[in-house]
């Protein structure tokens, strides 16, 4: 601390009163000065110490600054290396264009290392060719052909074999290069490019020309560090290209697969397959060798060949020879180069000659199989040049071959299916004909009860059926039914039902009793239903046109509509529909089928139908409400009976706006008729003769041949005599004895019913035990009446009670 500071001591002259006091004052001052001096000295000592410390710090700072500068310099060097590497990495990340990446990289590295040349070699990059990119400056630039062959050099081979860097500071003295290289190339640094699994993908090299250069540790480590990203770029691009190629093949495979699944024309599929595969794989030929199932001979079914390649020829026999070279059941057989193929020794001379005849150098054959059946081979030829079929290619072709196998199998199945369909269609037609024949026996509507029918089957063979049965000339049974389901199976059940119906109609115990009839039919179907789940609905009504009486029973069928002629009402018959036929055993449902009875006047109509008429859908898919039918029946009330069924179908088509029928449609319209009648109150020969003459004259007037007059007269007489002799005598006491004759004339037929007031007779017993009802005991004086009736008339029937006889005569 400096001592030059002045200090002012305060002095008060007013206080100088004497010497002593002055002296005292001086002493005081001296004391103060002394203290002040001590304090200054202390300060000076402290300052000196501080100055020394400051000098030490300055030295240390200088040292730190130097160290920092050194460190900064090192850091700057390092970041330059990192910057370079980052730049490489960023470039690699931003592009898949390897050629561009490599070119930029060699340019970058060349500039950075300030070398004459920098290059990268990627062997077997594309189509077995090396990819080489080189940076060079000035006079050291060289033609591409020259550096393209670098991979053949000893140095390159050394690096790729050892997978270690090669550092040649002076080629003139280095053992590998001394005397081998041009003197211009003096220093070489070559580093292998290794991908993550240490697999070699190429090399990167630096050339210093003319002037020798000793490669520093930093240069070596930088190049080695750069080798990593470059290898990654190559690997990434290779993977990308592979993925691209897989994607392309996958696309092609999908295309072929969807084509195979999209068409059943096997030839079109195979034609396109060979063309697309041939183009995709750039092969000279692609063809399919199909093996004939019966002869085991192989033929070319489809072939694609490049424009400059001669096709082998479709349809020619072409036994695959190369399959002798592979294992049995091999996944594929391939030959890279026929001229270097050692397995050819397995072939005879002729076979080898045939292989050479194809001009192919490389061969590939992949079996076409499906479920272990060999259909043929998918074959490829590469002409003139060898070809190493890659695993990817083979695996891709195998995938296609597998699809082709599916296609061929599919084609064969289609062929079989078509054959089966043709057969089925033929059989369906036969079934339809058979059904038609079966049904035709019951479809004759020319009865004494006016009937009109409209029948629109949904399929060739139908599930709806009807049966019109003349139980007697004046008693007509009308059966209508609907078998569940449609098509052949329903038709088969219909066939079965018709057979059963025929049997049941033969038996009066069932045919004249609707509820008994339906019960028997239901039980019969139920028995059959053990093996299926079909059922049928049915309505059976018996119309007696003399009494105007209808008895009916319903098994789950839509109830018919009743249209009285003289009233403005149309209602459904209250027939209490029971369980459909065949669903349950009649023992299992209480009450069984109900028998209903109602009466009709002449002109009254009944409309019987199946659910195809009432369960028709509209365009929106909903059912048309059944009310339409009632309204339509009102509209058609005054139409002729014959027109009604078809008119109903037409109205339904209009209402449904042309929506296709979902089901069979069947309508049976019936009208109660008026009848011609004669009464025979007494057994008077001349009256009987007279009345019979009226009937016979009517018959003759309606076309009966005159020659039949005597027969008809005899028949009618016999019937009436029988009524008088055997029927009338048994008339109950409270009933007036009478005999009535009703007769009807239709086209070529006469029919009549003779009804007496008696209780009837056991006609079943009368005709029982007679092998032929027409047989007459010729020596017997009586008993000729019945045989005569059967002799004269085409049909003789009685009601179950035996007091109504029905006779039909046809001409």
């Amino acid at each position, binding site marked *: 601390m400096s001592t030059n500071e002045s200090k002012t001591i305060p002095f008060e002259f007013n206080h100088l009163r004497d010497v002593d006091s002055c002296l005292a004052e001086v002493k005081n001052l001296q004391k103060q000065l002394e203290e002040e001096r001590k304090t200054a000295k202390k300060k000076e000592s402290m300052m000196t110490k501080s100055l020394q410390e400051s000098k030490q710090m300055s030295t240390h700072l200088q040292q730190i600054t130097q160290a920092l500068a050194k460190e900064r310099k090192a850091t700057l060097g390092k970041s330059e290396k990192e910057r370079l590497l980052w730049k490489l990495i960023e470039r690699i990340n931003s592009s898949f264009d390897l050629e561009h990446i490599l070119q930029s990289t060699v340019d970058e590295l060349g500039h950075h290392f300030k070398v004459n040349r920098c290059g990268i070699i990627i062997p077997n990059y594309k189509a077995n060719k090396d990819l080489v990119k080189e940076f060079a400056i000035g006079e050291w630039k060289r033609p591409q052909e020259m550096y393209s062959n670098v991979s053949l050099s000893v140095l390159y081979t050394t690096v790729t074999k050892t997978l270690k860097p090669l550092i040649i500071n002076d080629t003139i003295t280095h053992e590998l290069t001394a005397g081998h290289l041009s003197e211009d190339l003096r220093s070489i640094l070559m580093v292998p490019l290794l991908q993550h699994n240490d697999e070699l993908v190429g090399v990167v090299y630096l050339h210093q020309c003319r002037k020798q250069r000793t490669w520093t540790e930093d240069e070596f480590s930088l190049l080695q560090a750069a080798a990593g990203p470059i290898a990654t770029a190559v690997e990434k691009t290779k993977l990308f290209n592979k993925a691209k190629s897989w994607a392309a093949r996958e696309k092609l495979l999908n295309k072929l697969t969807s084509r195979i699944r999209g068409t059943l024309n096997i030839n079109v599929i195979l034609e396109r397959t060979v063309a697309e595969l041939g183009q995709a794989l750039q092969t000279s030929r692609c063809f399919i060798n199909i093996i004939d199932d019966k002869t085991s001979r192989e033929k070319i079914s489809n072939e694609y060949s490049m424009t400059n390649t001669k096709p082998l020829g479709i349809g020619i026999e072409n036994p695959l020879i190369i399959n002798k070279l592979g294992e049995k059941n091999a996944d594929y057989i391939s030959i890279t180069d026929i001229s270097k193929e050692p397995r050819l020794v397995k072939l005879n001379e002729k076979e080898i000659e045939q292989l050479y005849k194809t001009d192919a150098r490389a061969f590939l054959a992949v079996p076409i199989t499906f479920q272990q059946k060999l259909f043929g081979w998918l074959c490829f030829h590469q002409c003139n040049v060898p070809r190493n079929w890659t695993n990817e290619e083979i695996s891709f072709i195998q995938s296609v071959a597998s699809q082709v196998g599916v296609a061929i199998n599919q084609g064969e199945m289609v062929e079989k299916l078509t054959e089966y369909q043709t057969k089925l269609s033929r059989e369906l037609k036969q079934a339809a004909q058979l059904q038609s024949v079966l049904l035709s026996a019951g479809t004759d509507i020319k009865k004494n009860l006016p009937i009109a029918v409209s029948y629109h089957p949904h399929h060739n063979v139908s599930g709806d059926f009807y049966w019109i049965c003349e139980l007697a000339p004046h008693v007509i049974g009308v059966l209508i039914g609907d078998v569940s389901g449609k098509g052949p199976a329903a038709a088969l059940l219909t066939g079965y039902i018709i057979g059963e119906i025929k049997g049941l109609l033969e038996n009066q115990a069932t045919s004249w009793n609707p509820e008994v009839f339906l019960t028997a039919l239901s039980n019969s179907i139920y028995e059959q239903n053990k093996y299926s789940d079909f059922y049928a609905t049915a309505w059976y009504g018996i119309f007696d046109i003399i009494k105007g009486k209808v008895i009916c029973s319903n098994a789950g069928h839509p109830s018919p509509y009743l249209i009285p002629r003289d009233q403005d009402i149309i209602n459904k018959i209250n027939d209490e529909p029971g369980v459909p036929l065949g669903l349950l055993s009649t023992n299992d449902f209480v009450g069984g089928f109900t028998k209903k009875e109602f009466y009709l006047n002449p002109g009254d109509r009944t409309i019987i139908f199946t659910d195809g008429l009432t369960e028709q859908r509209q365009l929106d898919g909903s059912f048309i409400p059944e009310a339409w039918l009632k309204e339509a029946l009102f509209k058609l009330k005054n139409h002729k009976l014959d027109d009604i069924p078809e008119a109903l179908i037409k109205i339904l088509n209009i209402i449904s706006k042309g929506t296709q029928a979902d089901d069979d449609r069947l309508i049976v319209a019936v009208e109660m008729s008026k009848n011609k009648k004669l009464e025979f109150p007494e057994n008077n*020969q001349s009256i009987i003769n007279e009345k019979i003459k009226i009937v016979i004259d009517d018959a003759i007037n309606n076309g009966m041949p005159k020659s039949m007059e*005597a*027969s008809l007269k*005899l028949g009618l*007489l016999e019937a009436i005599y029988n009524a008088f002799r055997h029927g009338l005598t048994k008339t109950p006491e409270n009933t007036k004895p009478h005999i009535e004759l009703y007769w009807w004339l239709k086209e070529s037929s006469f029919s009549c019913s003779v009804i007496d007031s008696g209780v009837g007779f056991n006609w079943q017993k009368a005709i029982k035990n007679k092998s032929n009802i027409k047989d007459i005991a010729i020596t017997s004086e009586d008993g*000729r009446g019945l*045989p*005569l009736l059967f002799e*004269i008339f085409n049909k003789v029937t009685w009601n179950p009670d035996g007091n109504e006889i029905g006779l039909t005569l046809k001409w």
Partner: protein
Amino acid sequence: MKLNIEDKEDSLFIKVGGQLLYSEADHFKEEILPKIGQHSMVIVDCEDLEFIDSAGTGAIVRLWKECRMVGAELELIRVLPEVQKLLHMTRLHQLAKVTGIDEAA
């Protein structure tokens, strides 16, 4: 029915006309059957027989039986075609000889 019965030597000649029906059958039998037994031949002339029913043919069967019992032969001659047809229906032609009106006796 019209009935005319004549004895002609060994034959009984019966001419029947009109209709031989249920109502006349008994009358036919009552008139003819008592006369059977004295002739070796019974001839029924059917030229005027217009119609016959099962009872009528029954009556003829009875006649045939009587003839057979006495050993006489029954023959129906000059039968009209319509009647002949009816006789065939009742198989009468299998018992007696039946000759049509246009056939030689």
